[in-house]
């Protein structure tokens, strides 16, 4: 970590917050655009100076890691790309980490999506990760991209009993029955683990309700931060584990790098984003404190 960058960040922001505090004590208003500038600085400076912090997996994230790690090699893992470009900065590190981990363990990976935009993002992941980092993996043998199907939860309702009622071919038009990976795979119940990555509708909740729960199939989730609190009630009985937001992604990446030296040089966008994330959160917390101080001072003066 760049210590100079850290000093500059804390120095700049600390000075600014002090100025805020003084104005707050004096009961003076602060232009909201200055607050925007501070948030911008709190995010931009750590990015420029590559400020990062070490991460340790929390139990809810570790549970997902352990599940994939402990499945015997050759197990079937389905990853559903249920997000679009608007959510990609948050959840793409998760989906990439799941893909790397599953392939490194020798599992069979089945890729699909309930979002139209998820299909192209899955394709990009295959091009950038599978083909480059795992050139020995063969499409149709070690992984398959089933693509997107319209219908939201309706798709899950069908493929929980028969995948071929929705998917006859993969995304490239190759017949599923000609692929060794699809042999003995009739429905979602043949999967050893389902992973949904997303944050909207349909998302992890729908996967739990329409696939994981009724099919008694182990289910894990990678969710955008907005939806994560709504999914905590499902853990640990209905969800094996959950990665919530970029923090969850960073924790998973750290765990992966710690246990797999081959990934030491892989990009870790989750961990990288936690630097600016941490600073921005500290600034917001400081704003809340300063705002409350100002509120009580003004109230006392008026009283």
């Amino acid at each position, binding site marked *: 970590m760049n210590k100079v960058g850290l000093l500059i960040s804390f120095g700049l922001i600390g000075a600014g917050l002090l100025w805020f505090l003084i104005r707050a004590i004096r009961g003076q208003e602060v232009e909201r655009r200055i607050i925007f500038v501070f948030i911008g600085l709190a995010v931009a400076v750590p990015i420029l100076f590559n400020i990062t912090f070490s991460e340790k997996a929390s139990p809810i994230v570790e549970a997902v890691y352990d599940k994939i790690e402990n499945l015997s090699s050759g197990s079937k893992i389905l990853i559903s790309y249920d997000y679009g470009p608007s959510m990609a900065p948050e959840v793409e590190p998760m989906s990439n980490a799941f893909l790397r981990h599953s392939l490194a363990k020798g599992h069979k990976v089945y890729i699909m999506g309930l979002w139209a935009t998820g299909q192209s993002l899955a394709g990009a992941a295959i091009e950038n990760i599978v083909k480059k980092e795992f050139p020995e993996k063969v499409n149709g043998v070690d992984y398959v991209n089933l693509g997107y199907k319209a219908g939201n939860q309706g798709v899950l309702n069908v493929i929980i009993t028969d995948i071929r009622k929705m998917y006859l071919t993969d995304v490239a038009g190759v017949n599923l029955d000609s692929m060794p990976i699809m042999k003995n795979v*009739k429905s979602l119940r043949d999967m050893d683990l389902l992973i949904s990555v997303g944050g909207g509708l349909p998302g992890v909740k729908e996967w739990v309700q329409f696939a994981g729960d009724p099919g*008694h199939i182990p289910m894990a989730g990678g969710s955008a931060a*907005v*939806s994560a*609190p*709504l999914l905590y009630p499902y853990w640990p009985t209905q969800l094996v584990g959950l990665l919530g937001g970029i923090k969850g992604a960073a924790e998973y990446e750290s765990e992966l790098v710690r246990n797999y030296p081959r990934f030491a040089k892989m990009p870790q966008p989750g961990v990288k984003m936690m630097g600016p994330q941490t600073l921005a959160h500290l600034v917001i917390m400081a704003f809340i404190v300063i705002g409350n101080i100002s509120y009580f001072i003004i109230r006392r003066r008026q009283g």
Partner: protein
Amino acid sequence: MKLKILMLCCIMFLGAVSAGLAQGNIDTSSQTTTPTISPPASPGNLRAKDTPNDNGHSITLSWDLSSDDGSGNKSVLGYKIFRSTNRDSGFVERGVSPSGSKEYVDLGGASAEENDYMPNNSDYYYKLRAITADSMIFAEMAIFGPIQTTGQWYNTSRTLILLFVLLFTSLMVYFIVKARKGANLFVRKLAGIEAVDVAIGRATEMGKPILYVLGLGTAADIATIASFTILGRVAKKVAEYQTGLIVPCNDPIVMTVAQETVRASYLDAGRPEAYKENMVYFATSMQFPYVAAVNGTMLRELPATNIYMGKFYAESLLLAETGALAGSIQIAGTDEVAQIPFFVVACDYTLIGEELYAASAYLGREPVLLGSLKAQDYAKAAIIVLAIIGMIAANFHWNNFTEIFHITN
């Protein structure tokens, strides 16, 4: 004598060689070889039954483990399952169960087009084989059968869900009937709804209009339907006080229903002539352009009161922040849990989740709404009682009770 002994030895030797060749245990091309794995003990007590609570095409097998599975010689790697429609021949491998497992579900296809079609009401025979690392060394059980698959009309594992459905439906019907007969079903006051009247009065005094936002839901969403009832009440008050009302809509059907609601309210208030078509208008159906349109209205018209009732998403904070900038009193209500924090922070009053539905029942006093609300309340009471009993059961390990709530299929 010696010749007789020699001849006897030769005959015995020839007999042993013949027997060894017949069994294939003697490799005549090489010296003696001994097998490295001894045949495992046979698993026992193979049983098969029609898999319960399904549409058929499935048999569940169970057996007792081989004594060499995990103990003894520890040579058992798993169990191979074979099936045939004929007792004597035609056995086909159906799958492999790993060592330590005592059960296997043989699931076949449901339609004739499928490769592994397994029709119902047909006889099936099974045999089980404990396998080792050497494919030639295994132990096989006696054949079990015939067994047939059938589909069930009723899934017994979902009986609890059926009971809850019947319970809630009965409660709802009972309370709706009771409400229709004129019974006074009590609903406690809601702070947000009490504030609506105050806010309307404030708008009248200031001579500024009221902005009512129905959210981004469709006319089929419950939150939007609840919002229509509240809109009706607000419109009636607005008509009585002769205050302005602005209702920008995101969905054409919602706009149609909202127009009818407001028109009916003005009629009820005895001021049909005061109703204007452009009070309720369609802005756009896209999320953020809708927000831009509503924000523009707020900053131009400077309404005294903003009421947000319905389904909101990421635009909730944008709306509430702009309303705060415009200096309006803000009352919000939504069932989108992710957006409630933003309304709580930025608005003066917030109806949280179910309070929105309760508000529509409280204001409208319609028997269906009141009856449904009462039924929900009793259902909540039932959940509280069940939770207390379940907590006690968990403490005292009364598994019979807690297991009832584990739905297996």
